[in-house]
């Protein structure tokens, strides 16, 4: 399987795809905006004085509803894909998923606690609730990942295999707890719980975007600095050590990046599967496994794919909206099987 595309062409294509996905995601919805209006309204948002009542309405839709949602989708997609690359590198397995270290299930557990706990306390203050939910999800993700990491450590060494198994065990445990909450929840709580567990960009706001954007920027700037180390790590941990890399420190950084990135993504948009698994895999098929190309390309591809998946979630049953996790799984799982079968042939 030699690279199909030169890195430069791939970046160009992915850049165009992202621009297209962003435009579609801004323009399409219950009220479709023509391209010209979308562009002009975007310019107005940036402070260019353009007149017209029609544009005023377009600016409102764009600025208040579509833009935060599109930016949230873009960021969630990018950070999930980046963390997917990090985990596949850490576990030296192209089929690893960013949820393996327990961060997704931990975040889901944190969120479930907040939802059910909030309902049990008779509902939280309206202004306060979404932040508490996100915060609990973030803390849950970090907490479970920290536990998985600790369980994987022995004599100052981190065993990736033990971490993997600990991640599976804790994911099952968190699943059981969430199941219990689901069983005990009343109808309204159940609906929130389910919707949140399947992921959604609905309810995107700038307030929800900023923390995630900061975390994503940090991850996106940090991981490429470790691209060479990630390449060496694919050879094996001893081999990476013999090549002069501080393997323990790098493993710690990768787990931390993933816990922060996926934790923040789940906190902002719920559980969205398959992006972190499929995107790096797909990009690797196109340009090979070199992390210097793989990391930025996966970020671009993940952002585009999540925007398109969100578009499908919004438009498929309009005016109703599907949880985006259903769309990514519906598209991702068969595609993944196709990749597997093709790889075997």
């Amino acid at each position, binding site marked *: 399987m*030699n690279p199909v595309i030169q890195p430069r062409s791939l970046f160009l294509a992915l850049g165009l795809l992202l621009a297209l996905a962003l435009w579609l995601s801004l323009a399409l919805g219950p009220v479709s905006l023509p391209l010209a209006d979308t562009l002009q309204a975007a310019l107005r948002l940036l402070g260019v004085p353009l007149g017209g009542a029609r544009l005023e309405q377009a600016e409102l839709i764009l600025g208040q509803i579509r833009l935060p949602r599109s930016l949230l989708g873009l960021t969630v997609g990018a950070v999930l894909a980046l963390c997917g690359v990090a985990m596949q590198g850490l576990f030296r397995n192209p089929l690893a998923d960013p949820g393996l270290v327990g961060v997704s299930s931990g975040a889901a557990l944190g969120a479930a606690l907040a939802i059910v706990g909030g309902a049990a306390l008779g509902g939280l203050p309206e202004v306060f609730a979404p932040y508490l939910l996100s915060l609990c999800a973030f803390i849950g993700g970090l907490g479970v990942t920290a536990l998985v990491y600790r369980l994987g450590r022995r004599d100052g060494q981190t065993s990736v295999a033990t971490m993997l198994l600990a991640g599976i065990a804790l994911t099952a445990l968190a699943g059981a707890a969430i199941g219990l909450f689901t069983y005990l929840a009343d109808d309204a709580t159940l609906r929130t719980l389910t919707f949140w567990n399947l992921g959604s960009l609905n309810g995107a706001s700038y307030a929800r975007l900023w923390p995630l954007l900061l975390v994503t920027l940090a991850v996106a700037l940090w991981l490429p600095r470790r691209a*060479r180390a990630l390449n060496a790590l694919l050879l094996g941990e001893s081999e990476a*050590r*013999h090549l002069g890399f501080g393997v323990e420190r790098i493993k710690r950084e990768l787990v931390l990046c993933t816990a922060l990135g996926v934790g923040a993504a789940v906190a902002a948009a719920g559980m969205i599967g398959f992006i972190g698994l499929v995107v790096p895999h797909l990009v690797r098929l196109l340009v090979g496994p070199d992390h210097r190309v793989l990391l930025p390309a996966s970020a671009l591809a993940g952002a585009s794919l999540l925007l398109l998946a969100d578009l499908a979630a919004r438009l498929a049953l309009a005016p109703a909206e599907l949880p985006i996790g259903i769309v990514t799984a519906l598209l991702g799982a068969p595609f993944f099987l196709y990749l597997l079968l093709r790889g075997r042939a």
Partner: protein
Amino acid sequence: MLRAENLAVQRGPQLVLADIDLELRPGEVLGVLGPNGAGKSTLLGALCGELSPARGQVWLDRRPLADWPGSERAQRLAVLPQSSTLNFAFRVEEVVAMGRLPHASGRLRDGEIVAAALAAADAAHLAGRSYLALSGGERQRVHLARVLAQLWPGGAGQILLLDEPTSMLDPLHQHTTLQATRAFAEQGAAVLVILHDLNLAARYCDRLLLLQRGRPHALGSPEQVLRAEPLQAVFGLEVLVQRHPERGHPLIVAR
């Protein structure tokens, strides 16, 4: 140079390696022999800093090996493990180029070195192919090229540790690999190689270390070590030792 001083390694309550005093000399190939579980790979692990010793010390030049910063150490000391777990579709030259990661010699120079190292490991024809499409023996040669590239061109002060580099190779490539190793040592590097084939050891090594249950049983020239008594004592194998009719080194035949 790399020197082990009264080295011992503990695993659980047991000393799996002890009483190792050893110096790798520039330009010399040192072979390590011994039955399964004699501590050969443990010795290699301790010599490269992967295993921390329970007693004793490993020195690189006049500094303890553990005190060397990672990349500086990697510019001096390369290790070829028994097998690799690489499971990603790198191209062959990308795998070999990873040997250049500790260096900052530039893309152009690295490209030349990768080509030279591939040629030295008799793997130049594999360039351009996906690593995953290679056979076990071909992969082993690609990794040999990788560790050669890490130290290329090789010289006094550099150390190469090889753990059974011939285990998956056909007879011809067992010889070409050890010839390449010898040629590399002749540039000045010190080489330690773990081998199972006594005749390959007799032919290509300057000195041999015979390990038994984690202790050195004999250390010396092939003529001194490859005699019937020590081989019987360590391997429990009755052998006849002849002379190679053309080259004169010991030739070992099981009785």
